[in-house]
């Protein structure tokens, strides 16, 4: 097809190789007409600078030879995802996607469906020619029943291949789209209507109103193996029965333009405001060595926060510190455990397999971990745990009635504070009592009543340890 310069298209198609004045489309193909309608609409509305076309893989892949606007060539089926990426970061541009029925209706259907459902801000042009044109005429999701293609040589069978996919009708179930219409380019009256629909979809983008979807029935004489006139007739008489031309939705008048977010705060101010403990970086201190602790129990006993508190106290004393939790399904079984390493130098392995200190608040974790404590180490265990296994030789055992005592004192959920008191009293974390208390107070800074009660509990715990 030889074209005169079309409004909105390049004068010469230098990107297309040798044939710089002809498009690559076959005679009678609907793509050429649709390419032209889109470029004319963009030019007439003065939007070429702002326009970004996301092209498909399929016969429309070389649209960027012609469209005089920004062009991005997406992977097969991904134009909706790519256009989403563009419109999310460029709110002032006019984003368009252009896809065939294999590209959008098959390989990229979920990407298209989800983008439509989210009501992304772009216009989608969907060319339905009932076949895979570019790859030589295989069956498309839109292929009609009985239609012979390379991959449905006996004709599409409902039993074997399922039914033609009606994309407009499916998208019309979604709340996201602002505008959905099916048009055709099979004759001049239809082309005029198609042009209007294309313009409307682009206007919706210009006005920042949301997602617009235009399906365009297009002849494909080459793959239907008929001439251009018969192919156009086929579109009008046969395809339109399956895919009626219709405006399914037009909310363009009532849709509101997208709102822009308020100016954000400065990044440093933002992170400074989040109130997590901000301490100077750790210092190297070879004399300190390393303490490796493991905290274990049931989820809900405050095991992870106990480990976190100890880690924060270590940071306060400018020790190198790491905290590593069990995660994934392990944690869902109800078990909770974390490793804490406190060191005078940068920490190697953060995972504590052979702890110096094991804090244990339930039976299963006692049984699981007690054997791993190193000689010279300490096990602090809640008194409710029956010690079916003895700790290894040279390991000190501390029994703390944390659960009972905290229940007696009316704070059953704060048993971890009593374990902390034991840890502190025995000095096994090598952290100062006041560091631990500073962090505890900081953790409860928004609930002063809690802070006081926990301090009282901590002191009760220290006394109870002293008495054993």
């Amino acid at each position, binding site marked *: 097809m030889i074209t005169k310069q079309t409004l909105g298209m390049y004068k010469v198609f230098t990107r297309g190789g040798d044939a710089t004045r002809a498009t690559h489309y076959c005679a009678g193909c609907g793509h050429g007409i649709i390419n032209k309608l889109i470029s004319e609409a963009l030019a007439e509305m003065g939007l070429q600078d702002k326009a970004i076309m996301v092209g498909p893989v399929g016969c429309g892949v070389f649209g960027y030879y012609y469209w005089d606007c920004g062009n991005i060539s997406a992977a097969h089926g991904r134009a909706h995802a790519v256009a989403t990426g563009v419109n999310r970061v460029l709110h002032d541009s006019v984003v368009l996607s252009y896809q065939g029925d294999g590209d959008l209706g098959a390989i990229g259907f979920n990407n298209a469906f989800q983008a439509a459902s989210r009501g992304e801000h772009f216009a989608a042009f969907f060319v339905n020619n009932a076949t895979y044109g570019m790859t030589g005429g295989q069956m498309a999701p839109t292929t009609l029943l009985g239609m012979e293609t390379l991959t449905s040589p006996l004709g599409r069978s409902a039993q074997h291949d399922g039914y033609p996919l009606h994309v407009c009708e499916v998208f019309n179930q979604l709340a996201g789209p602002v505008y959905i219409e099916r048009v055709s380019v099979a004759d001049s009256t239809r082309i005029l209507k198609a042009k209007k629909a294309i313009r409307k979809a682009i206007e919706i983008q210009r006005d920042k109103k949301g997602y617009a979807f235009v399906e365009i029935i297009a002849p494909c004489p080459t793959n239907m193996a008929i001439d251009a006139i018969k192919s156009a007739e086929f579109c009008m008489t046969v395809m339109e029965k399956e895919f009626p031309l219709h405006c399914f939705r037009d909310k363009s008048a009532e849709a509101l333009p997208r709102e822009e977010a308020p100016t954000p705060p400065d990044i440093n101010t*933002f992170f400074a405001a989040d109130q*997590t403990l*901000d301490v100077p*970086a750790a210092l190297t201190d070879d004399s300190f060595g390393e303490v490796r602790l493991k905290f274990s129990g049931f989820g809900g006993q405050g095991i992870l926060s106990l480990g976190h508190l100890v880690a924060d106290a270590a940071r306060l004393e400018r020790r190198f510190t790491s905290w590593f939790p069990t*995660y994934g399904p392990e944690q869902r079984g109800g078990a909770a455990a974390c490793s804490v390493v406190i060191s005078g130098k940068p920490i190697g392995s953060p995972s504590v397999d052979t702890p110096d200190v094991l804090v244990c608040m339930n039976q299963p974790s006692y049984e699981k971990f007690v054997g791993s404590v190193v000689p010279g180490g300490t096990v602090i265990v809640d008194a409710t745990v029956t010690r079916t296994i003895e700790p290894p030789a040279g390991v000190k055992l501390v029994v703390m009635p944390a659960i009972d005592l905290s229940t007696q004192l009316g704070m059953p959920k704060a048993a971890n504070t009593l374990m902390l008191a034991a840890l502190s009293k025995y000095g096994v974390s090598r952290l100062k009592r006041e560091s631990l208390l500073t962090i505890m107070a900081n953790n409860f800074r928004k609930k002063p009543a809690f802070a006081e009660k926990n301090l009282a509990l901590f002191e009760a715990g220290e006394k109870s340890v002293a008495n054993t």
Partner: protein
Amino acid sequence: MTKFIKGNEAVVIGALYAGADVYFGYPITPASEIAHAAADWFPALGREFLQAECETASINMMFGAAAAGKLAITATSGPGMSLMQEGLSYMAGAELPGVIVNIMRAGPGLGNVYPEQADYNQAVKGGGHGNYQCVVLAPASIQEMCDFTQRAFALSCKYRTPAIVLSDGLLGQMMENLILPQSIMPRPDLQAWAVAGTAETRKNLVSSIFLNAPEQELHNQRLQAKYDSMRPDAAHETYLCEDAEVVLVCYGISSRIARTAAETLRSEGVKAGVFRPITLNPFPAEALCKTLVGRKALAVELSCGQFRDDLLMHLAKEGKRYQEVALVNHMGGIVMSVEEIVAAAKKLR
């Protein structure tokens, strides 16, 4: 300013200070905290966050945002990384920047959610179709999870190819002190090639198509030359290597454990050191070859020997020599203990 945070959260802080405009992602353990933190912090700081419908979508959204000249990041773990290979190949082909964080978990298939390093070949050798490479950085601490995310953006923009931060479930989940960056990195100018919806960029085209074979070959040759030119950005770290008789070669979390193992070995009379590549691509091959001369080498990895085999390749290609590299490893989500490394190193003597 310092914070005690998870590696996964440190990634997001790195991205924000790198000036990332947008986060796209799909939830997966053990990477989900990256999406959680991004969902909190990106919008609060005027950046964009979007949960995609799948990782194929995430990476193609990245493609779109990058084509528009913006800085995009996504994070995932093995199964999602596999889905992203299509988009990575297209991004590399179209020469688009972007940062992909892989918090590796055990595979193949669904595997489990515990740490592994078995996506090494996938990250370092391309992973998708065609002759392409990504920049690959391997952090080993929470500080580096942040810093290397920033570096990944810088290198990705410099070389116009995707950059992967190759980490694992342990580094993602653990907490350490992070010293926050002081200011947002200067913004690279991408307008020469971006399609930004402006008069200046109207002529631009982002595409990976070269229909004509000689042109496609030329494009490939240019890409290869570009990948070769990345070598000066290869980085590594050595620990106690000066007088070492045994060198533990490892990256990421394995190098942390190897550090402790090297100290233990020294306390037991074996002079051990650690060689740790910081960039897995470009690989610090020259430094590796020099460090290993006259020394025994032990690869420490959470994979089947993918990394060890790559070391052999680098020694042969760069050092023009064959050298035995022993292997101590675990797979399946088990992290090797210091004792295992110590025992393996002692066997070499």
